[in-house]
């Protein structure tokens, strides 16, 4: 069921683009508990996909499988033409092409903001420090906090920390950005500053996959919405379709609870 849905929902204009992330029948168990069952979906280049669903539905697990923070047990995950297998070289390649932003920011507390951002460019991309710092400063400019470069993460507000985390991920010049509930740990007044940065990023043509509970963001920014429950993809569609005429009973029930 979910297979056909995922394919049908892609608009013609999108369908013409290259595939960025392809999942075919992905399964994932934690012990006896099946967290993902038969996830099949394709995310196109420059597409913004928002994944919705009740907690425990496997949204985060799926997004974490895409850069191998969790290993899937069967099925295929292909990112930008590279298949995610046990091959360490593939994992390394995919990770340096996929940026990730976490709910808890996960900045490195012992490094300054600028060192947080330049760490990976210096040690993975082998850039020179001046070059990496120049890039880091322009990224901080982009996320709106260039004056915080020399501070430590503990000295920043939650919203500022999450923007640094986005800049840190962007410093690797990824082709895809994954967001795992980026605003869930933030105070309400800081959510907007992070969502603004994400919107700007979306407009700039980045391929994005966002797990969130921000319905407003999903409605405004997403090209497609994927609704999950109990480890399965229940429904896929444009925001208009999803919020106005959902097909599945489970989707209707979810929307009646959150809206």
């Amino acid at each position, binding site marked *: 069921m979910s297979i056909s849905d995922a394919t049908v929902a892609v608009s013609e204009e999108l369908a013409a683009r290259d595939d960025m992330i392809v999942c075919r029948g992905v399964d994932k168990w934690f012990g006896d508990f099946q967290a993902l069952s038969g996830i099949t979906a394709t995310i196109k280049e420059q597409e913004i996909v928002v994944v919705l669903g009740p907690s425990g539905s496997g949204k985060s697990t799926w997004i974490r499988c895409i850069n191998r*923070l969790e290993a899937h047990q069967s099925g295929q995950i292909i990112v930008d033409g590279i298949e995610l297998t046990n091959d360490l070289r593939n994992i390394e390649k995919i990770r340096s092409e996929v940026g990730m932003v976490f709910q808890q920011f996960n900045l490195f507390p012992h490094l300054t903001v600028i060192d947080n951002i330049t760490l990976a460019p210096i040690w993975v991309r082998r850039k020179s420090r001046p*070059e990496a710092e120049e890039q880091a400063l322009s990224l901080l400019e982009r996320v709106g906090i260039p004056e915080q470069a020399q501070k430590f993460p503990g*000295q920043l507000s939650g919203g500022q920390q999450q923007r640094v985390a986005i800049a840190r991920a962007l410093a690797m010049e990824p082709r895809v950005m994954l967001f795992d509930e980026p605003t869930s740990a933030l105070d309400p007044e800081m959510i907007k500053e992070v969502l603004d940065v994400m919107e700007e990023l979306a407009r700039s043509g980045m391929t994005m996959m966002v797990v969130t509970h921000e319905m407003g963001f999903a409605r405004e920014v997403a090209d497609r919405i994927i609704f999950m429950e109990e480890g399965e993809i229940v429904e896929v569609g444009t925001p208009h379709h999803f919020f106005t005429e959902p097909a599945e009973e489970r989707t209707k029930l979810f929307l009646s609870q959150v809206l």
Partner: protein
Amino acid sequence: MSNEGAAGDVASLSTLGTRPPFYRDATVVKWLSQVVGLILVLLGLFFLASQAQNNLEARDIATGYDFLGTALGSDLGSGIDTDPDTSGRALWVGMVNTIRLAIAGIALATLLGVLVGVGRLSRNWIVSRTSSVFVETLRNIPLLVQIILIFVVIASLPRVETDQGPIHGWLHISNTGVSIPRVTIGDGFYQWIIFVIVGAALGWQVMRRQERRHDLTGQQTYPWLSLTGVVAVFAAVGWFAHPALGWVGAIFDAIASGVDALTPGIVQLVISLLAIAAAVQWIRRFLASHRTPAGLTKLIDDDYFRIIFAAASAVLVILFVTLGWPGLSSWIINSGRDLFEVIADKFGDGRTGVPITAYRPDIEQLGNFPNYGPAGLNLIQALAAVYFGVVLYTAAFIAEVVRGGILAVPKGQSEAAQALGLRRTTMLRRVILPQAFRVILPPLGNQYLNLTKNTSLAIAIGYSDVVQVGQTVYNQTGKTLEVVSIWMLFYLACSLTISVVVNFFNVRMRIVER
């Protein structure tokens, strides 16, 4: 910006209105209570000391440390000098034994503890199980029992045989302990070490240069490899070229006679000037830190107290060196001269032999049974028992400290590092270990202190550490209180040294929170 804020606060504080009476003035009370407390403690100590002196005199017990110079009627089991002339020398040998035990123990216990601690976290089932068993066994049995157990186990090993041991006689293990090659300092050692030091300084520069180049260009460089290489080259060249430095001794001789030419008055003058300079410097720095672009901020009472305290300290130091203990100056001159004479002697003429020699352990038969000869470094039974006892015991605790430190780094940190594509080694080195180290350091320092103090259990099996030697000394001289005071000062000095070193790293590793 924050400076201005602070200045504003100070200004508003001082315009708060009328002054309270001095006994309700927070600043005055704070300083007065500290000065009074200090005086009370000093008086209390003085009272206790004189009381003890009086009591001992009343009971006709002679006090004083003169016994340190008297002859000791017995030999020591092991040490740098097994037949010391005096009690003082014997205690010194004991201290050296304890220090050697502590340093070697800390090194091995740290290595073993880190391996086992990381091992407990390993995904390899056998490694993690073995590590768990190691920790749970060793930390749940009293150290004294373990030391005696090792002692007994060594005693049950085969006897020393006259034929060659393993590795062509370079290693012997028997019921008398372990004998390994002895590495000794030869005649040319000190000239050679100059080459090594120069090499290390130069290598350090090369290493920094390489690190800078990596920073600037992103090129792969090998800073540690270069450092090792430069030091190795200098050590190799120095091995043959060191006789060229025979003249170094003369320089130290000149310094020694220069120090000897000083009079106590000059030393007192220098110390006094240093004290004044330090106080002036401190006050100037203090005032500078209170200076804003708008001019000097208004000083509050607390600041005046600090300035007065700094000046008073300088005056006290001057009074102490000139009037309180005039002998100190001549003592400084004498020990300074002796120090440089000893160094000059190390570089003395004709010292051009091989810097370092390794001797193969030998076995000699003087009486009925063969035993280890003086050529090897003999880890005798008692030493081996107490050494491996404290090492294994402390390693178990260090393992737990290390494991706890690594687990204390949130999982999100390694996930973030992985998501950025960092390799495992880079992640450990740049992200995980710096954070784990900060958690590990304080309890690790405690374990080092424990290890050092636990070496005193050597008395149970008769290894001549400072406690065992001290016991011998007071049994012969009856100077119990004096020996105990020496023990206390010695262990205090060791513990404070360890604390200072650990705290130094602790401060450097601290994370800025806000």
